[in-house]
């Protein structure tokens, strides 16, 4: 009597399987549709600056003057591209050593204390909204820089400091995961050969986790690249390439947020902002590609 019983039990489970498959398929289809329509919309609006309004691509990418509502209309976005890259890279340069050292402390030196107290604190940093960072930057960091360093206080330095605090949790979390995933045998072998704790960290642990660390840094740079509000409040927003770290500069994101409410959809000024958004989106694709390439390399 075993077979008919099995077939009876198989029927309701067949329906379940089918319903589950269709439901998850619908969800993923919806997701893909949303992403594609978003990319299509940004691309169509961004490219219309070149095809409908007749702006030259090379002029946009390398021009130095930005005046879409001036006479004559100029569309040089190089100051913004320079500003975005310099603030993101400088922020990563500040946050990467800090993040790595913090994760080394949390995993190697004080694991219990790290897991109980430091991990929630780092996660708290990640949860603070970016406008709070911008406000604190404007009220505390900018006056401090203005008093201590020669310059205006605003600029790439202030932007990089604010961004580095924002991407610190990203880098620390990924570095902690990478360190915790190291096989114990690696460190035990190093100690067995007579290396001290710091020698092990410096010569064995760091080079082995370097690919994962790079992934964290690139993700941090991607996050910093896309940050808009916090950067806009502390960077000064002059559409020029600054001559010092403490002179007013501009990024792709701050240029968009500064002007988007004041332009009307369909005008060339608005389309130019969409082109900046298209550049941002393409850079995000590049960052994702780099991260996946690094992950492939890190499979030991």
């Amino acid at each position, binding site marked *: 009597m075993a077979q008919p019983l099995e077939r009876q039990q198989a029927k309701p489970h067949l329906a379940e399987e089918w319903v589950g498959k269709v439901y998850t398929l619908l969800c993923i289809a919806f997701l893909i549709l949303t992403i594609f329509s978003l990319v299509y919309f940004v691309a169509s609006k961004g490219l219309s600056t070149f095809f409908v309004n007749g702006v030259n691509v090379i002029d946009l990418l390398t021009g130095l003057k930005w005046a879409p509502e001036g006479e004559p209309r100029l569309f040089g976005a190089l100051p913004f591209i320079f500003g975005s890259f310099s603030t993101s890279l400088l922020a990563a340069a500040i946050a990467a050593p800090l993040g790595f050292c913090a994760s080394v402390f949390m995993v190697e030196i004080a694991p219990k204390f790290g897991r109980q107290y430091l991990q929630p604190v780092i996660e708290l940093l990640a949860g603070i909204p970016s406008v709070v960072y911008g406000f604190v930057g404007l009220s505390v960091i900018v006056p401090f820089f203005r008093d201590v360093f020669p310059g205006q206080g605003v600029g790439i330095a202030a932007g990089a400091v604010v961004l580095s605090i924002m991407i610190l949790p990203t880098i620390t979390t990924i570095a902690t995961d990478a360190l915790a995933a190291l096989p114990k045998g690696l460190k035990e072998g190093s100690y067995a050969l007579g290396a001290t704790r710091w020698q092990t960290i410096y010569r064995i642990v760091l080079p082995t986790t370097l690919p994962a660390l790079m992934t964290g840094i690139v993700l941090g740079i991607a996050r910093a690249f896309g940050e808009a509000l916090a950067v806009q409040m502390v960077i000064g927003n002059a559409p020029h390439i600054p001559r010092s770290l403490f002179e007013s500069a501009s990024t792709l994101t701050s240029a968009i947020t500064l002007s*988007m409410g004041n332009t009307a959809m369909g005008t060339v000024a608005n389309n130019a902002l969409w082109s900046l958004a298209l550049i941002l989106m393409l850079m995000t694709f590049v960052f994702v590609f780099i991260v996946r390439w690094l992950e492939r390399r890190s499979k030991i």
Partner: protein
Amino acid sequence: MPAFYNMNCQEKNKELEGELYEMKKTVMMLMVLALTVVLAACGQNNNSGGASPSPESSAPASESPAAELSGSLLATGSSALLPLVEQASKKFMDIHKGVSIQVQAGGSGTGLTQVSEGQSDIGNSDVFAEEKLDAAKAAELVDHQVAVVGMAAVVNPNVSVDSLTKQQLVDIFTGKVTNWKDLGGEDQKIQIINRPSSSGTRATFETYALGQKSEDLQGSIQEDSSGTVRKLVGETPGAIGYLALSYLDESIKVLKYDGVEATVENVANGTYPVWAYEHMYTKGEPSELAKAFLDFMLTDEIQNNDVVELGYIPANKMEIKRDVNGTITK
């Protein structure tokens, strides 16, 4: 849950009861949450509608007591005009209980686009529509000028200059003069705090105070919100910027323009030229509800109370008129 088939009858019963209990708790929580949300929504309606139960007869004289208006309006656009429209809409909704008016910011450009495409009923704007939209779209919109906003150049309180002529302002904002000592002040670098080039406030300042467009100079600071401009001008030594009169306070110093002080009287009689209309545009002639609201904005109750209280100038106080090309008529 441990393997169900390994337990005996009593344990199985307890497990099922436990599961049922968990499910009941979840359903209970969801119902309480839904109830709270519904109550909160109802409570808000009651508050905004019932807080000031002014009967129809106490409405201003221009309203006919029998006018039972209902419906909803969406007004979007200028953030400079937002406080005034919001306050007026609250008063309007108190008088007409069946009406709901939503006011949003987003910038003059957004407001004009949305009213032109039919996404909103009223578009609030600091500039004439012809300056932002192309001529065909702008011709479809009907302009209602509800207030006047004056603008003044402001400096950091440590700057010792009191008044600037038009030529001096032009020299500062085009970068010809970079130190206050060239204008009679101390030896201090001039720090320009500008608005973005697409801002309506900047367009007004450039047209009527400078007489020409100014460039975005290297080393100038641009901020989009007037509040941030005020904060930066108050804190940065040697800073100069420009603000609407409604934003002036003790943290900054107001400059005279060509010797004329920036007061309501001087704007009204035409001796102080740096001002702009606040527009509320509708696509074509306004609907009955929109017309009632726009007329309400021009009644004495709003013009003499809210407009003045928020720092604007009543439209009917102006002794001169100005059109989009700048021609002045009395």
